[in-house]
């Protein structure tokens, strides 16, 4: 079998996004290749014939995603609209269909990168390879998770939880991973070489993924060594950073880091305006969910929480700030550096958590875990 197909099938399973044997992956160059036989080949071959794509993933998600996604899809009006940053920026919304036919699937994939078919699974496609289909698949799972728990909290506050929803919620909660814990030790600073820094970044990235503090490809990590910030590349997978770390000279004398993470402006500003040198940015789910749980009634800024929030918000002492990805006028690089200066970390609305340390990644990683675990506890406290 095509090694690329094997790689992404394994990744889906390893990251808890699909169960063994479930994913069907197809890629088309001159010939169409599949990772396994399937009775639905004809449907997907028709889709490949009609669309200018080169890869498809079709799979039932693993639990708890399966129950969550089926529920959201069944209760949607054909479109799920998560409010998290990833979906808002890169996917816009998540279309749903109840028909598993080439015509229906094609008509939706013409406009969007994914389609959810309740009871059957998620179909995603890529025009630039299997990785694109994989990232979309992972993001659909992530976005639906965030939306499900956010919606439940919203409804619970207002007494809108019926028995079905309540049972589903209990079932989903029972299948959650246990809270992250880490009793080991990471590489200790101060580091005395660029190679050492890169090793420390790789270790921190791998542990962040292993502890499920970031899904898909959306976190980033950096360390400032001397006058150079070493930072993960854009679209890199934090558990596989070898060869994907850009050196970024603080004096701007080289544009090699043009491939650096989208959040480079925030990392640079943190380094330049605080004493921190190690920065970790993950997307832990309950922190994101709570960042969007605002109980200020009749707020006039409700539509622009992700861009600018006039209120001082926090959860269990950790500040929540607004801000968008990258370098635009509402960029999080304008909010995070100031907010993190005297705090263990900062949560960005609907997006993720930044933590920072002075000599290595031990403290930022511990802070990331602690913030997420506190948010998780806080979430269930609020439910009660």
């Amino acid at each position, binding site marked *: 079998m095509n090694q690329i197909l094997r790689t992404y099938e394994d990744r889906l399973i390893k990251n808890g996004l699909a169960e063994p044997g479930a994913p069907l992956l197809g890629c088309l160059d001159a010939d169409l290749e599949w990772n396994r036989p399937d009775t639905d080949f004809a449907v997907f071959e028709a889709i490949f014939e009609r669309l200018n794509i080169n890869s498809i993933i079709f799979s039932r998600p693993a639990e708890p995603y399966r129950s969550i996604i089926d529920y959201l899809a069944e209760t949607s009006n054909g479109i799920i609209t998560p409010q998290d940053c990833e979906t808002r920026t890169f996917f816009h919304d998540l279309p749903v269909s109840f028909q598993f036919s080439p015509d229906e699937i094609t008509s939706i994939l013409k406009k969007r990168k994914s389609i959810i078919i309740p009871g059957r699974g998620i179909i995603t496609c890529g025009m630039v390879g299997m990785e694109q289909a994989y990232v979309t698949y992972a993001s659909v799972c992530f976005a639906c998770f965030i939306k499900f728990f956010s919606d439940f909290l919203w409804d619970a506050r207002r007494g809108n939880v019926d028995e079905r929803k309540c049972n589903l919620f209990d079932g989903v909660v029972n299948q959650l991973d246990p809270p992250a814990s880490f009793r080991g030790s990471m590489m200790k600073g101060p580091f005395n070489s660029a190679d050492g820094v890169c090793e420390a970044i790789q270790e921190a990235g791998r542990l962040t993924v292993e502890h499920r503090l970031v899904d898909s490809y959306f976190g980033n990590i950096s360390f400032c060594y001397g006058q150079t910030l070493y930072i993960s590349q854009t679209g890199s997978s934090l558990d596989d950073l070898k060869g994907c770390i850009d050196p970024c000279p603080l004096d701007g004398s080289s544009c090699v880091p043009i491939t650096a993470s989208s959040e480079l402006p925030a990392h640079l500003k943190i380094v330049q305006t605080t004493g921190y040198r190690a920065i970790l940015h993950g997307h832990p789910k309950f922190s994101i969910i709570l960042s969007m749980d605002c109980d200020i009634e009749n707020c006039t800024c409700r539509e622009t929480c992700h861009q600018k929030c006039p209120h001082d918000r926090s959860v269990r002492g950790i500040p929540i700030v607004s801000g968008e990805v990258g370098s635009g006028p509402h*960029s999080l690089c304008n909010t995070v550096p100031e907010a993190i200066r005297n705090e263990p970390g900062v949560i960005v609305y609907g997006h993720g958590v930044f933590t920072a340390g002075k000599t290595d990644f031990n403290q930022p990683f511990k802070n990331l875990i602690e913030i997420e675990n506190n948010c998780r506890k806080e979430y269930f406290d609020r439910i009660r």
Partner: protein
Amino acid sequence: MNMYGWCGKIARINLSNQTGYVDTADPDILKMFIGGRGLSGYYLREKITLDWNHPDMPLLFFTGPLVNTRSPTSGRMTIMSRSPLTGTVGDSSVGGSFAHQLKKAGFDGIIITGKSETLCGIEIQDQTIRIVDAAHFTGRKINEVHSFLKDRGSTAIIGPAAENGVLFSSIMVDRNFAAGRTGIGRVAGSKNLKYLTVKGTGRTKVFDPEGLRSAREDVFRLAAASPVLLGEYGISRFGTGALYDLMDARCMMPTDNFRKTRFGNASLMNAYAFKKKYSPKKTGCRGCHILCKKITESRTSMPEFETMSHFSALLGNRDIDAVVEANRVCNEMGMDTISAAATLACFSEISKKKLSPQKIVSLLRNMGRNKGIGAELGKGAMIYAQRCGRSDLAMAVKGQELPAYDPRGAYGMALAYATSSRGGCHLRAYPISHEILRKPVATDRFSFKGKARMIKIGEDLNAAADSLTVCKFIFFAASLEEYARIYTAVTGIKTSGQDLSETGERINYNERMMNAANGFSGEDDDLPGRFFESPGEKDGDIQIEPIEREAFLSARSNYYRARKLDKNGMPVPKVARQLGLRPLIIPKGDL
């Protein structure tokens, strides 16, 4: 005609009899080919077998439906004809404000045929078209002519090079924006057309302004999240020269006529060095928020990435001022910087003479003036090398010189160079986006696996972009998914990203048909032998090896299947019909 987006009007101008009239565009054709490159190709196809300098050969200027609206990065147009340099379809996408003014004047495009007896200009003000004498501009440089004409609106001007027979002559828009590639400036020169000016006052109707606002915000959000576009080291801050360091770091900077892939002086001649030395300001095309163009207070245009790279590394030149001067000379004389530099590099290798900074600049002037060895070099690297009996040293595909990405460092780029319908060009498929810049995701740059279809899809995407006449750079961040919403909001025509991609497929197939009609086949879809024989440099874990010939040929065969061509790379009539393309009647038969 009540149209949204398009004007529905085309200016047809015949320089032989000095007449012009306003033609009506067929709405069905507009939908099938959109605008820009697509629409130009539609109007070119029936004449494509004529010689490039035949009076009936059209020179086409086409905008798109999004121009003169608030659609992001939409202020571009395509200039097309048959290329004097390659004999293929010849086109160039260009920014500035010409497209914007043309739409304001009420035209989607201009079709120029015939040949003026003396040098002339075309001046358009709203619906009034004048053909005027321009003999007094004979031999005048572009900046000089522009200073005379700038009050008459946006300008498109050829320089002395186009008048003097340089086959890679450009047309410069608003003095600083080059329609550089494929030598279309020479086509204007052959028609004795020195310039066009256009100024208009009209508005372009938008079907759904609120829908456009919403879709536009999505594109802005994506652009803000793009390190390449608006990041700390992106092209908005440093210009396209921001790519310079990366190409060297990835060991794929063409150096010494592609004999090497790293340049020892790169860190001293990068975008940072230019910024520090010249303190340029940001500017850009009309309606663009990225503003990648860099110009000094004295109106000196900073070189683009390709120009920076080829006038330094490719020629082994370590003088940063000479790069700026070479760029200035090319822009004033009206020559494509990529072809000019690559031809000099070929000359340097054949003659075994390293060119000093002064020699580089003087040779460029002589090219433009058709003087001495410059007259020979003005025919491009391939013709010059053939005359010297060393065609192997012309680093060109289909006669067009290669840009500044060594194909041994990115195999998708290698395939895309070979299959490009206009010869050695990085922009048709632009796989650098995923092979180097990691957008939308990263792919393995040292593998042909899956690249055939990726290149086909990339070509379709960029054909659609060139026909919407939006900037290709925005697709480092956004996709046709977002631009489909913009297109629908502007025109009222329901579409999808995939529908636009299918239109791109039609446009590419049409170009392939036109090239086939002129005798091009799979044999022409090839790279210079050097890339299959010689390695590049090594740095750490990166080792630039020669491309494996069999793997390349296999990928090319796969491309033909993905593109639905026959095994020799020729168009298939049945596929053409399925794409809505009528057969192309040529003397040898139908295609």
